[in-house]
């Protein structure tokens, strides 16, 4: 895992607006199983950051514990990262974000890390609307401990162990909408064409952005009877309205037919253009999003795409009314009121 890649770069590699190549966004070699869905998500994160020309060192990566939470080592090697304890990434992310509001926070978690041990922290970070991208690499099982069912495993779904899961599944996207998230999307690790723009849109959103990604576990949960397997996901994927992600620097040129699209402008000026289809619904309304997800659930479908967007919410810093300068840059001069004030305060206790 600590092996180092050759530093040689082909001179003709394509560069982004900052002059970085895609390689500048890579990390160490993955130690996950060959074919793991998580590695595809890692690649999608690299691609999204590269295409958006994000300065690699202005990103902070956070994760919990589990296979998914190892992956921040495999992307953005020039960014700081922290591996918290199991299920506690949301609180560590909250503190980190409070210390410096100017970085892009990318959290990576798994379904065990988020929907079981970290469920309490998850719903509360949603409530606080912390400005971050929260990616769940969702495979319905505990990989590192050899394949136990997780809380997102669908009722009746079987992993390699062969026993159908008898418990109800938690849908993290529905939970996030219910607890007030401003951006909720679901992707599939096998569909890069959809996942990269979903991640880019999430990065453009200010506030909490959940991207729940179905990410099959090839070793323990890729059986025909598993609803988190590659073939099941391909067969049962139902996309919401297809959409274009138009970054803030790009001019909107294509024509569109009135009533056939819905534009949502994100905080950074980029635009999500949703093309309406028979499946589409108003993603800006909570009830409409929840209804669409519930309808697909009843039909045994996996609804993917942008499920909910609300750009009107205040993030944690807005709510707490913190100063514009990152708190970690403040010095004695900003923070310490000095002895004269202390003498005055003491007077109140005489």
């Amino acid at each position: 895992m600590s092996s180092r890649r050759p530093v040689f770069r082909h001179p003709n590699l394509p560069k982004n607006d900052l002059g970085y190549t895609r390689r500048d966004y890579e990390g160490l070699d993955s130690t996950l199983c060959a074919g793991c869905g998580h590695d595809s998500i890692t690649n999608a994160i690299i691609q999204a950051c590269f295409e958006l020309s994000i300065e690699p060192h202005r990103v902070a990566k956070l994760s919990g514990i589990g296979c998914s939470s190892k992956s921040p080592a495999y992307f953005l090697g020039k960014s700081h990262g922290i591996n918290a304890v199991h299920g506690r990434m949301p609180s560590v992310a909250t503190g980190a974000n409070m210390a410096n509001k100017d970085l892009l926070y990318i959290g990576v978690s798994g379904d065990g890390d988020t929907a079981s041990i970290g469920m309490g922290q998850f719903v509360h970070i949603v409530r606080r609307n912390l400005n971050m991208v929260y990616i769940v690499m969702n495979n319905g099982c505990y990989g590192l401990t050899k394949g136990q069912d997780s809380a997102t495993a669908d009722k009746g779904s079987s992993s390699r162990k062969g026993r159908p899961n008898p418990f109800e599944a938690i849908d993290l996207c529905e939970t996030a909408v219910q607890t007030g998230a401003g951006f909720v999307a679901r992707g599939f690790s096998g569909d890069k064409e959809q996942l990269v723009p979903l991640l880019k849109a999430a990065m453009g959103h200010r506030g909490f952005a959940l991207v729940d990604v179905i990410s099959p576990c090839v070793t323990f949960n890729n059986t025909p009877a598993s609803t988190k397997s590659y073939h099941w996901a391909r067969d049962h994927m139902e996309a919401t309205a297809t959409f274009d992600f138009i970054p803030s620097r790009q001019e909107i040129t294509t024509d569109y037919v009135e009533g056939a699209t819905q534009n949502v402008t994100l905080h950074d000026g980029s635009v999500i253009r949703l093309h309406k289809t028979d499946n589409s619904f108003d993603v800006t309304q909570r009830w409409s999003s929840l209804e669409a997800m519930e309808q697909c659930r009843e039909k045994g479908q996996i609804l993917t795409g942008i499920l909910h967007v609300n750009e009107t919410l205040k993030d944690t810093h807005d709510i707490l009314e913190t100063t514009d300068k990152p708190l970690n840059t403040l010095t004695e001069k900003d923070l310490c009121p000095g002895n004269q004030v202390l003498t005055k305060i003491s007077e109140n206790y005489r």
Partner: protein
Amino acid sequence: MKKLNRINDFVIRFANVNGSGSASANNLFAKAVFRLGVPVSPKNIFPSNIQGLPTWYEVRVCEKGYLGRRGGYDFIVAVNGQTLKKDYEGLESGGYFFYDSTKSLTEDYTRKDITLIRMPLTDICNREIDNPKLRPLLKNIIYVGALAYLLDMDFSILTDSIAKQFSKKPKLAEPNIRALKLGREYASEHFAHTCELSLKRSDKLAGHILIDGNTATGLGALYGGATVAGWYPITPSTSVIEAFDKFTRQYRMDESGKRKAAIIQAEDELSAMGIALGAAWNGARAFTATSGPGVSLMTELLGLAYFSEIPVVLINVQRAGPSTGMPTRTQQSDVLACAYASHGDTKHVLLFPCDPKECFEMTAESFDLADRLQTPVIVMSDLDLGMNDHVSMPMEWDDARRYDRGKVLDRAALDSMVRDWGRYLDSDNDGICYRTYPGTHPEKGAYFTRGSSHDEYAAYTEDTDAYKRCMERLSQKFETARDLMPASHIQINANAGTLGAVFYGTTTNAANEAIEQLGEKGIVLNSLRVRGFPFKDEVRKFINSHDQVFVIEQNRDGQMRTLLITELDLLPSKLISIAHVAGTPIDALSITRSIEALLIDKPKPETPKGGAA
């Protein structure tokens, strides 16, 4: 019967019903004693309840300046029917029993050795106060007015205090002052020459303040430069954050009215510690405040902070455990839980404040220590210190002081670095390595922080040698911490003395008083007050230079004694535990009695733990 006859030296106890508004009246009385220049120590002994259960407020007045609990009470204001009998029976012989005589005492109140002071408080209220809503509150003020007469107090101190308290709402001052006068008038008409306890103006307090430890701790966090606090409400630590919040709203606003602090009430203590840890990792000074149950929940993250070397400050305002224990009672029972908090080989830096001034100083200092050592620092306060008012010297701040942010490489330092940088590379040989904040440099200084085993370059490793090197370096860092701990306070009363006493935190006042009491009886003890862990070298020297050392503390198992024995490799039989387990603040008299008893009946080496105060 001989009445107790004393000036500026007695204990008065108030027995009230929780939620009846008695706290402000009782505070008014304690503050008046303070403003008379007389050393005073109020202790609120209250239930875990909002309304209805018994609560006591004990005020010790002591011209000599002893500020610990004395034990016993000489005067009781007994206005709680639920505890009347108990309050009656506990009164010292020769003492004064002041009660609401609207309801007569039953026949079983037969003591002949005390003075009854009958005041029909309820009748007076009903007759004199028109607004029935105000009656229960003002009833308390009326007895304070009566006390002013009975104790021969300067009445203007009380009326001035009321005026000051209600300076912004003078309309509220008026009925309070009237109630004070009602009490004084009734007392002067009925209780002439009844009470021989009195309060006289004194000059024992010069420049002192009367403040609770939690407020001072919150101020310490303000001055220490904390900007992020994660917290979860828990008695008795909540008011630390409330104070920090209040002071940052006053003194930490920018020009546009925005706040230079982020305070987040978390969903639980796990999250509270996670928030502090995440902020500290990202270069902000961050802390959380909690009590025992919260410490239990925080231990996993404390282990992460220890092993990945993140500076984080934890204020532990201890209460009586185990489990929920007695949430509104005091104890020093988290010493071991904090020293070794978390699984695996972990050790944490502890600071032990003994008064509000030290709460302020040690909290401010804890941020420097945490940054310097890149490890958690736990400030070990307790309920008695945190929630009761204490006479304290005023807090001071040296304006020339600069925060010690420790070994942090900024962009310029990374650019000018010639040698290889590794997050966990100990290039100074003090166990402390150089850290970088996220976002500092486009090419250098990034690393992945993890709680799994890591090598000098922060890469995951299961290599035995690399793991051992890391663990041994952390031990070495703890040795560096030893030198940075605040010096112990040592009091030598006999140069060739064979007996010593070791104590810490809120045991200090009672222990010092007990040592004087013992000295008067010819038992001379030298003493050492521990102020930090790891123990400084003088602690070992002090213990080694005495034959027998009493370790006085407020927990059942003698936790500091255990820590001393373990960490300093001492012979257990040399350290004798004087342990106070009541949940009320420790008092001098029981320490004195325990030590006396032990010296008469010397313990055998195999049963060294004899004392129970």
